[in-house]
């Protein structure tokens, strides 16, 4: 882990934090949104919040792929898992996401064959090893995980594995970001842009953020020093009245992304006209489905699924939390009716969700680190 340690140096972190403090004119308050759940996790995991001055507030964005899966899709997944002979394979992140009548963990206890995999290729292996079973991969994630699903589907097609299919819930990051920016009650001065997604799509697609909405965006890595440096870069832009896309994560993110991954995704997927996001509602062209060339591997075409839309629970204010309008603790059900054991809302589900991260790590009004 040598390579990583350099990005966790406490002395450098304090120096950066002191620079951040010095760069803000007194009396000014700045609200920054980290779009990606991975950043939310880092911020709490390392206590980065404690290093920031009071006048810099971090707001947690919509980039937790587990959190945004609507209940109806979870219900469809459970319906699939209950089909005779079906093995449903999914990432561990999905297991405790509530549908309208429970989670995958509950369905498994009821007898459904649901298996946790670490890669879509593992799901394909299960299909290869169990030719008498139908293996369905419950695909989730942004552009980060979509290429590996695409690669798996390409392989399944090439090898002619007939007992494998994919229930596709892949989503894309730009439409929800645009939807947030369009929202009249949004109060965000700048964005910490998603690092992993950008390794695939590149930095260029974010240029609409400063151009059309006049907000700076800095694509950031996930180590604590990455996040601090990105905050520093955003504040510099704000202080200097600049507004552009900058790339803090240059060691990984190229300007134009990964052309091979993009090509593969274009072959395997196509945009859905619209898709429902938990907490955010329907967003047009915000999700992927399998293209016609891959129709044979599409679980949605292979099975007749309920496809019932389940409304978000009324008490839940995840939408406001995701837009940064309210803090997790300001939600009416936070921590009482809605907890990590029995999550009502999407933000409480995964440890990357804003509410779960706050509940698990941030629940205390803490001392600021002296700089």
């Amino acid at each position, binding site marked *: 882990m040598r390579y990583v340690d350099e990005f966790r140096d406490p002395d450098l972190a304090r120096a950066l934090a002191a620079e951040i403090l010095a760069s803000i004119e007194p009396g000014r308050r700045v609200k920054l949104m980290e779009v990606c759940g991975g950043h939310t996790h880092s911020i709490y995991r390392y206590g980065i919040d404690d290093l920031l001055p009071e006048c810099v507030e971090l707001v947690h964005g919509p980039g937790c792929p587990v959190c945004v899966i609507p209940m109806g899709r979870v219900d469809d997944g459970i319906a699939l898992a209950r089909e005779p002979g079906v093995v449903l394979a999914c990432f561990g992140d999905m297991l405790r996401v509530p549908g309208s009548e429970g989670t995958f963990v509950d369905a498994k206890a009821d007898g459904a064959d649901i298996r946790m995999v670490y890669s879509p290729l593992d799901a394909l292996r299960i299909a290869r090893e169990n030719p008498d079973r139908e293996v369905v991969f419950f695909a989730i994630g942004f552009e980060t*995980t979509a290429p590996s699903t695409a690669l798996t589907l390409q392989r399944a097609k090439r090898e002619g594995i007939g007992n494998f299919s994919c229930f596709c819930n892949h989503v894309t990051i730009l439409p929800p970001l645009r939807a947030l920016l369009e929202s009249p009650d949004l109060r965000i001065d700048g964005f910490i842009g998603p690092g992993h997604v950008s390794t695939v799509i590149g930095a260029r697609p974010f240029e609409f953020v400063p151009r059309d909405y006049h907000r700076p965006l800095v694509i950031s890595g996930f180590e604590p020093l990455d996040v601090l440096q990105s905050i520093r870069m955003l504040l510099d832009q704000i202080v200097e009245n600049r507004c552009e896309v900058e790339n803090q994560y240059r060691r990984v993110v190229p300007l134009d992304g990964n052309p091979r991954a993009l090509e593969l995704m274009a072959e395997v997927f196509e945009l859905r006209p619209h898709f429902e996001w938990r907490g955010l509602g329907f967003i047009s062209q915000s999700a992927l489905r399998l293209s016609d060339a891959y129709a044979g591997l599409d679980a949605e075409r292979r099975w007749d699924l309920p496809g019932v839309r389940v409304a978000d629970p009324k008490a839940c204010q995840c939408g406001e939390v995701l837009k940064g309008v309210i803090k997790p603790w300001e939600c009416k059900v936070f921590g009482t009716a809605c907890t990590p054991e029995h999550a009502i809302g999407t933000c409480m589900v995964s440890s990357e969700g804003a509410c779960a991260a706050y509940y*698990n790590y941030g629940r205390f009004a803490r001392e600021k680190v002296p700089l």
Partner: protein
Amino acid sequence: VSANEVALDPERRKLQIVETARSKPARFTDRQVTLAHGAGGRATRALVEGLLVPAFGSPTLAELDDAAPIPGEGAKFAITTDTYVVRPIRFPGGSIGELAVNGTVNDLAVAGARPLALSVSLVLEEGLPADELRAEAGAIAAAADRAQVEVIAGDTKVVERGRADKMYICTTGVGARDPRVRLAPSAIEPGDRILLSGTIGDHGTAIMLARGEFELAADIESDTRSLWPTAEALIEAAGGSLRCMRDATRGGVASVANELARASGVSMLVRESAVPVRPPVVGAAELLGIDPLHIANEGKLLAFVAPEVAAEALRALRSVPGCEGAAEIGEVTAEAPGTVLVETPFGGHRVMDELVGDPLPRIC
């Protein structure tokens, strides 16, 4: 923080409501048992404290200690029991038979009882190869020999193929309570120091890798061992200033620290940079998005000692073979009763909560 400040600050007020909700006794409200109930986190607590303890109605059981004093005879003896299910049954550094001895021995040891005798019950799956059974019988005998306990009672059952996974083992242990200490969570006080007997996460990581579910190779072995020599060294060094010990098994150091913080109404501060973790465990945990503090151990204990004996206790601990890496990892405070805080290497803080169920890898 004064009551007035809390009343004025809506965030603090809300958080206080949350803490009140959290401190209520656990209730078992689930429709059925899921794997989460076996993972040693919050779901397990709901099952044990919400269903089993009320059903059995024993005040001694309600203490939820690792081992309980046997009533009568001046309560000279302690008893504990545990069931072992692990897949695969052999893994780098040990096997189910060795675990079944050491795990029960350790529950006695951390309760301050010298392990004397064990009973061993086997549930065997039809079709289990005789060689595998013979190997585990040998592993049980060897581990018992090393821990200086005698297997004095036993039982076997065989179930149809598919009704068990090779073999399950239940062991019950009896030990002689050391008169020099009376260990209990309630003895823990603000100011006490927290000692950890060595590196964490070795066992859980070795098992995860041995399952071969992800293609990671690393040189990590289970830490399964008897903790009686460790416990005895601490008892000798700290005597009555040794407040409480726990072995950090399922749910890792995080679960044990939370259990004790809740049981004793104190808060704990763990300094992350002081917690010993082997680099390959850090690496594997990093890749899987799991916190080493949540990973199971089978040969590590947490000890709470009065501050004035902490240095001496740590020296004694480090002199025990296998505990050379022991460290003082934090202290007990009074600030936020029932919670465990971690000080990150930056000096920032986070809550170290227990998990609901098994640690789930973060993939996306």
